[in-house]
């Protein structure tokens, strides 16, 4: 589980707060209940002590002490009701103390003597030597001239303590359980709240430069999420505009460049073929003409790229055999390679059917093969291979050339990018060949990749989805 996720943190906070709240509540409950029970118990004892003092001991001088003892036994039967009763005379001698209770919860003879001082009524909690606790209420009966009888009535605190213990156990078990439930509930709730974010993320994932006209779903909740999705949509709109502007700029620019280029080229051509011009001048005009032609080609390529960007790749859309296209194209270019003493081999025996525009796909082969030949020193070799696997038609072009440095690898398909200006000098490209390859591959629903290292050659892989017929054939 990702402990840094908002969902986890929300759930954790939720559970922690809930648990803390329950703990405080439990503590207050425990203390209140315990106090209430103790108080009630003492009050009952106090009532009895007063009763004994006011009814029996008040008349003790008349009835005699023996009568009092008999009456207490008869009326309260302390042993059977697990109660402690003690009557002490004013001089501290014990008139009566109850026997051990039936449940053996305390030993009355072990309860230390108590002097109430001036208070008529008092209550205390007496801890016996064996650790047991008695709750005792005392009442002073003013009956004899030389002192007071002190009536003490007590009972074991154990039932109350047992109940308190039980309550504590219940809380100890219940609080973690509530904590777990709160955590799970929090996790589910956070998940629900974050589902909209998930939907936005999923949609944002599939938006690329090719479908910038699409927008994210907007949750009409009037909260931060709605604001987020609206802001993201505004951002996509701005991106869309920027992309369209730059595409239109390239298209307009190359279009506008064509007319002046035509004029320059025509005039220079005219000059170059003028027999009256000195040879040296004609040579210079020729040199200018070479560059004008190169400029024209760059403009043409930019225009082609902007059209590919605009999704105009599928001018012709037919099923064709990539293998035969590749072997035919490489045949036509073999001489170019042989001229540089480079061996070209082609392994494309099995037909591989893809859907696409023949001349564009041929352009891919031409550009990649030309590139391989350009960067492979004499004596090297270039190997082409076409095969189908996993619903993909794959064209592989591997050379034994100079290779591409690692830092340049991610950039080789960028427009106007060249690995090394010096090395490409002489080659008439403008660094657009591989960009065109990429655009064509993408327009065909495929992609192009390169694996390379300096000194160990390069391997370009162009992948296209197979035509349905071929996919069926492979499945059988």
């Amino acid at each position, binding site marked *: 589980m990702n402990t840094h996720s908002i969902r986890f943190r929300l759930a954790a906070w939720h559970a922690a707060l809930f648990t803390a709240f329950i703990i405080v509540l439990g503590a207050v409950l425990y203390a209140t209940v315990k106090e209430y029970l103790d108080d009630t118990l003492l009050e009952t004892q106090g009532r009895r002590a007063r009763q004994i003092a006011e009814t029996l001991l008040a008349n003790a001088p008349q009835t005699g002490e023996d009568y009092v003892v008999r009456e207490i036994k008869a009326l309260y039967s302390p042993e059977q009701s697990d109660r402690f009763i003690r009557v002490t005379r004013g001089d501290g001698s014990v008139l009566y103390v109850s026997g051990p209770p039936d449940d053996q919860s305390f030993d009355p003879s072990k309860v230390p003597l108590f002097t109430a001082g001036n208070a008529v009524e008092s209550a205390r909690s007496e801890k016996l030597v064996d650790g047991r606790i008695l709750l005792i209420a005392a009442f002073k009966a003013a009956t004899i001239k030389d002192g007071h009888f002190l009536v003490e009535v007590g009972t074991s605190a154990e039932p109350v303590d047992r109940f308190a213990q039980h309550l504590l156990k219940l809380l100890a078990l219940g609080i973690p359980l509530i904590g777990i439930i709160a955590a799970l509930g929090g996790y589910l709730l956070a998940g629900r709240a974050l589902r909209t974010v998930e939907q936005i993320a999923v949609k944002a994932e599939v938006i690329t430069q090719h479908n910038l006209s699409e927008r994210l779903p907007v949750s009409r909740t009037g909260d931060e999420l709605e604001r987020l999705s609206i802001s993201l949509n505004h951002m996509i709109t701005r991106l869309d505009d920027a992309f369209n502007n730059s595409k239109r700029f390239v298209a307009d620019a190359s*279009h506008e460049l*064509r*007319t*002046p*280029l*035509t*004029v*320059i*080229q*025509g*005039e*220079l*051509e*005219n000059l*170059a*073929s003028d*027999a009256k011009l000195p040879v040296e001048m*004609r*040579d210079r*005009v*020729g*040199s*200018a*003409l*070479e560059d*004008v*032609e190169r400029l*024209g*080609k760059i*403009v*043409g*390529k930019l*225009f082609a790229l902007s*059209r590919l960007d605009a999704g*105009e790749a599928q*001018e*012709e859309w037919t099923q064709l055999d990539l293998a035969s296209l590749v072997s035919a*194209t490489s045949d*036509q*270019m073999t*001489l*170019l390679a042989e*001229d540089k003493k480079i061996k070209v081999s082609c392994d494309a025996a099995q037909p591989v059917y893809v859907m696409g525009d023949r*001349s*564009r796909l*041929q*352009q891919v*082969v*031409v*550009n990649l093969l*030309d590139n391989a030949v350009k960067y492979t020193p004499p004596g090297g070799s270039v190997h082409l291979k076409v095969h189908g696997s996993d619903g993909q038609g794959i064209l592989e072009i591997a050379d034994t050339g100079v290779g591409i440095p690692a830092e340049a690898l991610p950039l080789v398909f960028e427009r106007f990018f060249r690995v090394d200006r010096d090395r490409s000098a002489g080659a*008439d*490209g403008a660094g657009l*060949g591989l960009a065109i390859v990429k655009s064509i591959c993408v327009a065909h629903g495929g992609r192009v990749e390169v694996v390379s290292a300096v000194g160990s050659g390069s391997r370009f892989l162009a992948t296209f989805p197979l035509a349905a017929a071929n996919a069926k054939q492979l499945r059988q």
Partner: protein
Amino acid sequence: MRILIVEDEHKVAEMVSRGLRAERYAVDVAASGDTGWAMAYTYDYDMVILDLGLPGMDGAALLRRIRGRNPRIPILVLTARDATASKVDSFEAGADDYLTKPFVFAELVVRVKALLRRGPANQSSVVRIADLEFDRLTQHVSRAGKRIELTPKEYALLDYLATHPGRVLSRTMIVEHVWDQSFEGLTNIVDVYVRHLRAKIDDQFPKKLIRTVRGAGYRFTDEVDT
């Protein structure tokens, strides 16, 4: 032969008309679609060269009107739009040929000549230039009576060069005709093939038929260089 050029870019119109006049054509220039239509309606032209992006009546509309009035007149469309869809539209509207800016002037001349020649084809299957001879049917090539073996591409290159003797053919034109558009950026392939072709048909002979024109391309000629 009288040619009407409908082109709003003054300099392009001037350059084209000057070049065509040098080729001994009579040339009129119209700078807008409406003028173009008026002139095409009034005079009897042998051919129309038409820019698609025009002020006033747009090029495509003009193309349709001219075609509607004269089904046989050759029309060459000249434009900066090079999308295949635009080409197809033009051909469907009745254009006979299509050239994208920037173009090589030599190519324009080659196409104009081809369009004006269209009709009764007067092409003999055997082509003779100086002591070089080749047969378009059998594809046999010989020079000074000696049989020369060419690969299919070398033959296609020779055929293209020899079809336009004396004219400068740019590498781009050669690539487009001998290979196809996919090889457009690959003009160095032309140099390699020309070298191979020269080795076979020129190197052993004192008179060189394939000439290099700096910056422009190649020329196939038996004339003595000036």
